[in-house]
């Protein structure tokens, strides 16, 4: 059963129980009240009747009561007043039999002074009355008008009200269930649309901070990770095959040419030297690729730990200068925070190393090895790494494509590259919940700003 239906049923049951309890209470209390009221009415009738019939000789007052009675007392259906004289030692068994009521009724009157009884809609009220002629039991009886009409009407009204309330609450429950589960259904629908072909799609994020927004965020984070590893895999394969083929072609070509005829020993030595060189290059590249694969997204080696960004930057600088001694990197610590714990980021050192060295070596490459300024600073939430070069810049119209794999800006033709570094870097930064902002002016330079959230480590 769907949760939506379940919720609806639970709501409906709750509504219905409340309504039933409520109307049952109303019905019972109203009818109870009406019975009591009717018995009171009968009692008054009995007293009046007794006064009129039994106290014969009081003259004017007597006549007044009689007039009042005739004038204002509405005749009740089947109203009847009966008088029985009480003589000691005599029981009312015979009288009871003629009226059709139990003897205990009379016994109650004798002992308590009052008794009530009802049978088939007929109500009996008896009182003890002391008149001048002696003591009497006065029994007033009538059919209950309420029982006949009002209570049926009340029942009908209540049943209609219950049906109406039930329908109404069913509507509310339906709407409520739909309303509550609409965002969930939306999420399901949009997740269904995302497959390996369009991994770049994300769920719409709302600004609210409820559980569903959290779910959406978690989903999007997961998609980020999936997309990153997907892209890395794809890039890796194409990158690797290309990188490996270049030296192989050289080796094959060299060997082919040399073998076409018999050569002198010096020539053989030269050829083999070239082949050795290329083979060594191949070896280096294989090693580098292996390293990339190891640090990559295989889920096992991707451990997040605390990384000090300033140290990392020095490492990156060293690495790049080792790879390319022409690069000119100036690390600017002028805005380094006094509190070093603000520089600690929760992240994977190898990945961040890869990302930063990508950006910085790009800056070196595309500025023809002019000086590259790398600055570092930290606010309370973010660590900022700013890489500023005086290179060729990125054309404005192409700035939005720089994160597409294999995209290379139109002014980069004379530089070697595959268009893989920046998407990879962006993915790594995203993986660390960071942000990368690239701004550029053609022929003037490019500034890359990387924000990484501070890890909130104690000193």
């Amino acid at each position, binding site marked *: 059963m769907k949760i939506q239906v379940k919720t609806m049923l639970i709501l409906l049951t709750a509504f219905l129980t409340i309504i039933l309890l409520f109307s049952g209470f109303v019905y019972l209390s109203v009818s109870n009240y009406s019975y009591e009221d009717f018995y009171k009415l009968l009692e008054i009738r009995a007293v009046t009747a007794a006064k009129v019939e039994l106290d014969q000789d009081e003259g004017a007052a007597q006549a007044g009561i009689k007039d009042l009675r005739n004038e204002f007392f509405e005749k009740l259906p089947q109203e009847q007043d009966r008088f029985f004289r009480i003589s000691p030692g005599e029981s009312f068994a015979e009288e009871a039999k003629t009226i059709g009521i139990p003897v205990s009724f009379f016994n109650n009157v004798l002992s308590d002074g009052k008794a009530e009884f009802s049978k088939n809609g007929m109500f009996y009220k008896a009182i003890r009355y002391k008149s001048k002629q002696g003591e009497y039991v006065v029994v007033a009886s009538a059919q209950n008008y309420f029982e006949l009409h009002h209570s049926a009407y009340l029942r009908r009204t209540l049943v209609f009200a219950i049906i109406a309330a039930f329908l109404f609450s069913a509507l509310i429950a339906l709407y409520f269930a739909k309303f509550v589960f609409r965002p969930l259904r939306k999420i399901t629908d949009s997740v269904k649309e995302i497959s390996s072909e369009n991994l770049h799609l994300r769920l719409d994020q709302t600004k609210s901070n409820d559980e569903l927004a959290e779910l959406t965020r978690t989903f999007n984070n997961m998609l980020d990770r999936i997309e990153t590893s997907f892209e890395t895999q794809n890039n890796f394969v194409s990158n690797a095959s290309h990188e490996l083929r270049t030296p192989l072609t050289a080796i094959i070509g060299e060997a082919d040419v040399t073998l076409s005829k018999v050569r002198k020993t010096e020539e053989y030595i030269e050829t083999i030297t070239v082949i050795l060189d290329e083979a060594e290059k191949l070896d280096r590249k294989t090693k580098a690729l292996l390293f990339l694969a190891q640090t990559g997204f295989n889920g096992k080696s991707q451990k997040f730990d605390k990384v000090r960004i300033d140290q990392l930057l020095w490492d990156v600088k060293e690495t790049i200068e080792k790879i390319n001694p022409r690069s000119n990197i100036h690390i600017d610590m002028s*805005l380094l925070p*006094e509190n070093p714990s603000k520089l600690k980021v929760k992240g994977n050192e190898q990945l961040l190393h890869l990302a930063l060295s990508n950006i910085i070596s790009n800056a070196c490459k595309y500025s023809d090895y002019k000086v590259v300024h790398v600055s570092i600073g930290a*606010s*309370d*939430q*973010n660590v900022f790494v700013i890489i*500023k070069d005086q290179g060729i810049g990125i054309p404005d119209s192409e700035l939005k494509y720089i994160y597409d794999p294999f995209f290379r800006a139109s002014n980069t033709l004379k530089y070697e590259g595959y268009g893989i570094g920046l998407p990879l870097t962006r993915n790594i930064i995203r993986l660390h919940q960071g942000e990368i902002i690239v701004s550029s002016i053609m022929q*003037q330079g*490019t500034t890359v*700003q990387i924000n990484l959230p501070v890890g909130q480590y104690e000193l």
Partner: protein
Amino acid sequence: MEKTVLVPTDFSIASLNIVKSYLNEQDRNTRINIVLLHGMHQSDSITNLLFFSKSKVLESLTNPAFEEALRVLKNKYASQVRIMRKDIFTGFTQAAFNQFAEANRIDEVCLPILYNPQFKNRNSFDLLPFIKASKLNIITIGSAIEVPMPEKGNVAELFTNRVSMG
């Protein structure tokens, strides 16, 4: 020693660069209070006056990048800067400005050589005439040379060495 410096601001990161280079030149042992002051005419309708809240006005003027950059500066000069706060000046007269300076115990004003503030709010006004006419000590920093800057508006702007406003 302790002193208070007033820096006019248009809530751009460029104006924080002024603070940065000012702090660079200060003696390490001086404790410094910084007042980032923004001139803004206040609407004189009764309801606006009734519901006037300085923090809300400041909130509407700043942007996240400015706040982040401000915090970068605070972290850098954590031991040197005692207080760095934003304030708005709503007065119309020179006397009001002088009074403000006196009340806040302003010792000096720091201005860039290139001063061309860009105001986003139409009620904002330039504080320069007031500053010039007051008897406050003015320190001028920066250079008159424009440097191209792609990172305008980002936190990255704080890390460049250009000091000018506008």
